[in-house]
């Protein structure tokens, strides 16, 4: 059988997780092929995008010398809470963020992913694009031994296959590592536009001193029409990334069209001035798994491991994903190297991958926020109610009517009680606390 293997390892998908796995395995001396269905790595990707650098540094310590296509370092970040006509902003800006290398950057994946895949290729991985893996090949005992692609003579063999196929995890499903297709309740749909603006204009609008500063803003409340979800506004070098994400189920049950929700958000009086005069260059949509810790697929089986979005590795609470993906890719890669050294590709050996991952932030964070989706599910009013309250309260607080302040304070308390009973509020907070503590 061994002679049939063309490669030591096959990676399906050239996103952050797959590329991190391929890079790690290639550096570990494994003959690795990375198969990507898009015209180039990143062609099928789309995301908000803040990328946290720690995971990249872990996979590729010399990343800075390789000149990654970062847009701007994130030097200011925070939350905007919208009501239909107002906004309360909580922003954090710090000199600390200016230390180099910056810990977070805005990036555009159509640029970042090809660069990252190039690093894997430079490490010796073979990058094959424009090719879709249609089947995972198994031997009579069910061990994974390779993949079949949509090309003529399209089979390749390896004792290890890393599935990094992304959120639409058809191969993971076919292998039976997860029972069902993604239910609309556990997958978010994000729509985004890239709006081109001159760098100077961006800096003036967001109060940034130069191209070495950038802002990352998450927006709640009216941005998603009060429904569970978030919107975002990130500064790129010469453009803005603006988008809205909500659970697919919300779009369906409220009969909302994603582009209409985005258009509504863009026209909000607190948002529109930031976009004014910008040219939309790109519109796109992408699914984000919100499956959570308890509904993850099995992460390994004989000869195969699953990484990244395909395994639901997303922390929606902190809008993290690419860092979880890269760390998981690296873990899967190191496990594959160890498996080759031990010449053991069994289920038992590959279970190391999950075990190692449990010790990292990836599964620890996912475990901690395991109830987040349920929380939003059980308190669908949460975002809308409190964002509106904050804005109304701020209006009272910051206006002088010749009214005694004690009366104003009573009014504010009244505003809250109108919206939510004391017990309702207490239950919301308790649920939130529980969801955060895990």
């Amino acid at each position, binding site marked *: 059988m061994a002679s049939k293997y063309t490669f030591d390892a096959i990676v399906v998908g050239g996103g952050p997780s797959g590329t991190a796995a391929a890079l790690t395995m290639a550096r570990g001396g494994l003959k690795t092929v990375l198969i990507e269905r898009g015209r180039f790595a990143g062609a099928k990707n789309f995301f908000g995008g803040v990328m946290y650098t720690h995971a990249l540094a872990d996979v590729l310590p010399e990343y800075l010398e390789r000149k990654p296509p970062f847009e701007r370092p994130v030097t200011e970040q925070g939350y905007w809470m919208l009501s239909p006509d107002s906004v309360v902003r909580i922003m954090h800006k710090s000199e600390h963020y200016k230390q180099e290398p910056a810990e977070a950057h805005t990036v555009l994946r159509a640029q970042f992913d090809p660069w990252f895949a190039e690093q894997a290729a430079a490490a010796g991985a073979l990058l094959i694009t424009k090719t879709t893996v249609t089947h995972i090949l198994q031997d009579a005992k069910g061990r994974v031994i390779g993949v079949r692609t949509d*090309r003529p003579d399209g089979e390749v063999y390896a004792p290890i296959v890393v599935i990094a196929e992304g959120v639409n995890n058809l191969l993971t499903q076919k292998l039976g590592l997860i029972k069902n297709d993604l239910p609309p309740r556990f997958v978010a749909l994000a729509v985004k536009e890239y709006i081109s603006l001159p760098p100077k204009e961006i800096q003036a609008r967001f109060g940034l001193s130069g191209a070495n500063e950038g802002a990352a803003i998450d927006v709640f409340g009216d941005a998603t029409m009060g429904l569970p979800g978030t919107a975002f506004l990130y500064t790129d070098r010469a453009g803005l990334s603006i988008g809205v994400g909500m659970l697919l189920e919300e779009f369906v049950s409220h009969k909302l069209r994603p582009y209409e929700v985005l258009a509504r958000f863009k026209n909000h009086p607190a948002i529109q001035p930031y976009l004014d005069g910008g040219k939309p260059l790109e519109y796109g949509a992408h699914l984000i798994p919100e499956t959570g810790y308890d509904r993850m697929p099995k992460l390994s089986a004989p000869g195969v491991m699953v990484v990244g979005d395909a395994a639901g590795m997303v922390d929606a609470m902190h809008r993290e994903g690419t860092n979880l993906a890269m760390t998981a890719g690296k873990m899967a890669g190191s496990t594959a190297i160890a498996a080759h050294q031990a010449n053991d590709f069994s289920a038992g050996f590959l279970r190391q991958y999950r075990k190692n991952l449990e010790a990292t932030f990836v599964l620890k964070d996912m475990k901690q926020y395991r109830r987040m989706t349920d929380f939003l599910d059980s308190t669908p009013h949460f975002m809308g109610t409190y964002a509106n309250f904050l804005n109304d309260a701020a209006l009272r607080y910051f206006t002088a009517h010749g009214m005694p302040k004690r009366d104003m304070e009573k009014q504010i308390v009244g505003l809250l009680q109108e919206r939510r009973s004391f017990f309702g509020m207490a239950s919301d907070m308790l649920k939130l606390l529980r969801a955060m503590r895990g």
Partner: protein
Amino acid sequence: MHSVVAIKQVPDTSNVRINPETGTLIREGVPTIINPYDIHAVEMAVRIKEQFGGTVTVITMGPPKAMEALIECVEQGADRGILISDRRFGAADTLATSYVLAHTVEALQEAGPVDLLLFGKQAIDGDTGQVGPGVAARLHVPLLSNAVAIESFDPVARKAVIHRKIEQGIEVIETSLPALLTVEKEIAAVKRAPLPNLINAASYKPELWTADAPVPFDIEQVGIKGSPTIVGKAFTPPAREAGAIMSVAEKGLSEAVADALAMIVQASVVTLPNQNGGRP
């Protein structure tokens, strides 16, 4: 059998815009592709190789980025890719380009005969269709432009029968080999390349030829020095306006025709004959 295919990496003109001030293409940020006709030329060469054996060499003059295009040709089944790239080749017109490509083919001929030269009929960025014919003239080989099919191909008798598109229809013509064909897309439908080709191409490094090595080019004949063409002015022609539509369903046939005729007469395109049916 040795076929040489010349290709060009071009901006994907389905995405391209014109700078209204300078009249030139805005190339920045526009994805590049292999000139659509050229990839059919590569496919034809690969099919001939599959039938008669031999090798397919793909050559291109262009910036370093054009390496990608050569690798794509190797994916498609070519054996060898040569990038002819040097700053001194920059800003070449069709005269200078045909010199560089012809000189490259001559250098390849030193190592062994070249039996067939294939070019796309024109590049979609410049649309001149002059480089292929220019190379044929320089190499003194028969030129068959706008080829749509190879009816027969005999590498032993060194003959081929080619169908080429002409204004009146299709011309069927027998040629001696070597010959140079510039091809239409119909010459060969591009097949989805097999996976082993892609695996092979993923680690393939095309050769880089400069103005000095491995063969020296005459610097007087390349780049801007060797290009007598001067672009006086480039402009975007005004978009054509849509024509009027006469609805027979609404107006009835005779009124629609009468209205249409009236519009034509008004536009002074034709004059109607007089009432007697005689000439005006």
